[in-house]
């Protein structure tokens, strides 16, 4: 059985057995949870279905968050992408941005999402994977399997560092989600387990220090747009790893650094709405708008 205490463990175990990380993890989890591989696969397939539903739900024009502070971002970006030939990023990436926004907006409006790893960072993995499914014609089976890889990297990060904004800041939420998605993307593109770890390392390194500073304490500002930056980092980290522009610091050490940086963050920057954007004059005004003085 795997311990999920280090990324190197995942890579070595997969490479020794000649397996993809997803195959290794599915076998291991079936044993650990005392269920069949088919049952776990089916459960994950249903999660991917919910991800696709939240993309669709979040792209509705009239969507508004409970507080009224946000809404309609997924629709607006999709409109822009379609009417501006993909804008600067090109239609594939712009479409992925629109999907990440849609899922994060779906969450803010009390729609149904899959926490991946958290509700605040729930747009990154679907933004990446639903885009490959819808735009690149990737097989559902491969995509569902790649989510096991994402989950395995998330388990290691949770064990070694944290996936909670209240503990580690946004680097622990959107940072972890981007690292998980980057590893899944590499596997989907035919990369090796080592390249999956490389992509994870780059994604973590690129979000070190990101603070959790939600305006009014709500999962909206800046969380919804941080799902977009997390998605962009996931794609670029995966491409870097696949191109052989690997990290100089190994993934496990990057995750250790994430833990240390998280511990060094003052409480005001760990989900308490006491610092960062939440503490700006406009952030305060928005809070008063929702909750009064």
């Amino acid at each position, binding site marked *: 059985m795997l311990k999920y205490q280090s990324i190197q463990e995942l890579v070595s175990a997969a490479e020794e057995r000649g397996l993809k990380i997803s195959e290794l993890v599915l076998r291991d989890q079936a044993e650990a949870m005392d269920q069949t591989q088919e049952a776990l696969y089916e459960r994950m397939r249903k999660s991917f279905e919910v991800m696709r539903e939240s993309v669709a739900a979040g792209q509705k024009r009239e969507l508004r968050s409970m507080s009224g502070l946000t809404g309609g971002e997924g629709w607006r970006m999709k409109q822009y992408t379609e009417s501006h030939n993909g804008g600067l990023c090109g239609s594939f990436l712009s479409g992925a941005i629109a999907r990440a926004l849609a899922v994060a907006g779906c969450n803010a*409006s009390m729609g*149904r999402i899959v926490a991946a790893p958290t509700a605040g960072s729930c747009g990154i993995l679907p933004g990446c994977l639903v885009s490959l499914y819808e735009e690149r014609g990737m097989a559902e089976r491969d995509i569902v399997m790649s989510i096991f890889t994402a989950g395995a990297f998330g388990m290691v990060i949770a064990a070694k560092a944290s*996936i909670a904004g209240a503990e580690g800041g946004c680097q622990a939420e959107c940072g972890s989600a981007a690292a998980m998605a980057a590893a899944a993307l590499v596997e989907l593109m035919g990369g090796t387990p080592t390249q999956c770890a490389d992509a994870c390392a780059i994604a973590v390194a690129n979000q070190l220090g990101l603070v959790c500073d939600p305006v009014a304490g709500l999962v909206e500002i800046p969380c919804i747009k941080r799902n977009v930056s997390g998605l962009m980092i996931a794609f670029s980290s995966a491409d870097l790893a696949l191109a052989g522009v690997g990290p100089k610091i190994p993934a496990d050490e990057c995750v250790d650094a994430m833990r240390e940086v998280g511990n060094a963050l003052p409480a005001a920057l760990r989900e308490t709405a006491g610092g960062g954007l939440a503490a700006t004059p406009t952030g305060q005004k928005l809070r008063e708008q929702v909750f009064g003085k």
Partner: protein
Amino acid sequence: MNVFDIIGPVMIGPSSSHTAGAVRIGRVVNKLMDGQTPAKLELILSGSFAQTYRGHGTDRALLAGVMGFHSYSEEIRDALRIADRRGIRYEFVKRDLPGAHPNTARIVYTLADGSSGSVQAASVGGGNIRVDLINDMHVDFSGDSNTLLVMHLDRPGVIAAVTNLMREEYADLNICNFHLSREQRGGNAIMTIEIDNMPPAELIGDIRKLEHVTNALLIRRL
């Protein structure tokens, strides 16, 4: 921890602690009422729950849980309206509960026959909860396992009677956590027994027949 703790839960947003966890707190009340519809509810929100409940839909989430909905049910959004339609009189009260975890709710219910009860629980992160008080007695369980609550009088041998019954009549049941609290020596006491597997329905009836046991409840995995 397993892979679905990271990829999951499937939940209604926006917050695992303020929405999904709140539904689970409500569900403890639903189990305690044995799925009945309450006539009246007082929902006390403490700490961060009191400050930000509107933006996170914590009020809807608690009510939805009390009515038996899950943290993935679309009905959470409309829980206030559904409760109105079911004739439930509910009141949300912002009050800091001394010494409580920052995300704590206390729910007091009254049934149509006038009987009542209460649950105080904290949402401790990632949708996980910790139940602190049931009917004002200290308990300590998460709802991740099937949980047996045995209310009884504090007398020697009651714990042995319950666990022997389980051992003799329901041999495959395995206890994974045990907690006892009491008002005072010889007074009302409550056992919290978490069980790995699913106890059959008859277990509750058998435990209720034991001497000095005043009531027994099974809170199935939330």
